[in-house]
């Protein structure tokens, strides 16, 4: 693990109505790290991740994004009429990536349903399709919200393998999880 810093959030805070979700949370990730955000439902894991991703303005503190990141939220970002293949082709075009979509689908075990409209896929297959976006373009930091949700055992091992290989290549992952983690974290942040 090198000490190359990829993201740095300092003194972050969030309030919902009159309820303080979290306050004064500082979190930073260096290359090779896997940081798990832990906490009960409604403790603010997703909010913190969204603040790190720049999707929500922090109500306190600031975030310094040093490297490019991928975002996988708890919704998959899929359109009902898209197939896994057309979805990935679309985002590859948007990002100007020349990744081989067929190979990406194969790595996630999605070759067979590659041409099936997303409205007909199972929750696990939809999740795999969303996770496949991580492989379309190399980015140092992955911000993942409950990434193992809906995945079967095989899907979980594939994702765990992807995370390990991303870390080995010098990337880092910050993931919100509330269940058991099939991967070994560098550290956990409790909210």
């Amino acid at each position: 693990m090198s000490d190359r810093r990829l993201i740095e959030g300092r003194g972050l805070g969030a309030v919902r109505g009159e309820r303080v979700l979290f306050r004064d949370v500082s979190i930073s990730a260096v290359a090779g790290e896997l940081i798990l955000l832990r906490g009960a439902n409604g403790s603010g894991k997703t909010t913190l991740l969204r603040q790190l991703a720049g999707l929500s303005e922090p109500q306190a503190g600031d975030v310094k994004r040093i490297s490019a990141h991928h975002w996988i939220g708890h919704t998959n970002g899929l359109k009902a009429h898209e197939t896994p293949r057309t979805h990935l082709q679309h985002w590859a075009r948007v990002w100007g990536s020349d990744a081989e979509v067929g190979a990406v689908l194969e790595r996630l075990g999605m070759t067979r349903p590659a041409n099936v409209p997303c409205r007909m896929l199972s929750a696990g297959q939809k999740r795999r399709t969303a996770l496949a976006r991580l492989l379309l373009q190399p980015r140092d930091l992955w911000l993942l919200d409950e990434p193992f949700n809906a995945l079967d055992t095989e899907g979980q091992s594939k994702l765990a393998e992807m995370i390990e290989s991303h870390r080995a290549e010098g990337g880092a992952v910050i993931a919100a999880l509330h269940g058991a983690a099939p991967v070994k974290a560098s550290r956990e942040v409790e909210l």
Partner: protein
Amino acid sequence: MTASPLFSAFRSSLSEAWASGAGLLLPLGFFAGTAALVPFTLGSDAELLSRVGPGILWLALALSSMVTLERVFQADLQDGALDLWLQDTGSISLVAAIKTLTHWLVSGFPLVLLTPLIGFMLGVSPDKMVPAMLSYALGGLVFFLWGGVAAALSASVARAGLLIALIALPLYVPALIFGVQVVDAGLESPSFLFLCACTLFALGVAPAAMGAALRLAAE
């Protein structure tokens, strides 16, 4: 921002509209249905119909533009695609503008093409048809752009149809006023220039407003 993400946004909006199937025909049916009801309410006096016809068509156009606006951004917010657009493109405003323009192309432009038929039914004189079609094209674009702002502002609200109407209708007024005058006074009239100005203003301001509203909706 390069052209590639914008072209991809256009393609994706087009295929989404295509996938909605009969949904595409809703504004067209609403427009034709509203205009077709007019002779039943005003009677068959040809002179009266030809006098109020262009105004009725404008009203039908304004209302039809709102029929499908609710889902333009709401679906993106619900399925998480909005997060991806916010994350991965330089400008959500441009993407929002492309999505709205695509929406106008598939749902608004066909209304312009239907104008001669409905106009003929309402007794609009043939020499007014070209100014009418051109003004409907520009006015429709203005309606869809301001409607897009309203749709973006209410993206996180369930059953937002009424809210969209409340926000968008006041913004439609200038284009509506000048547009109706263009049909009567022709393309050489100052009203046409004012209608063009309304269109340019909407093109310049609405995308930024949509972008800001979508950022707020994603919070």
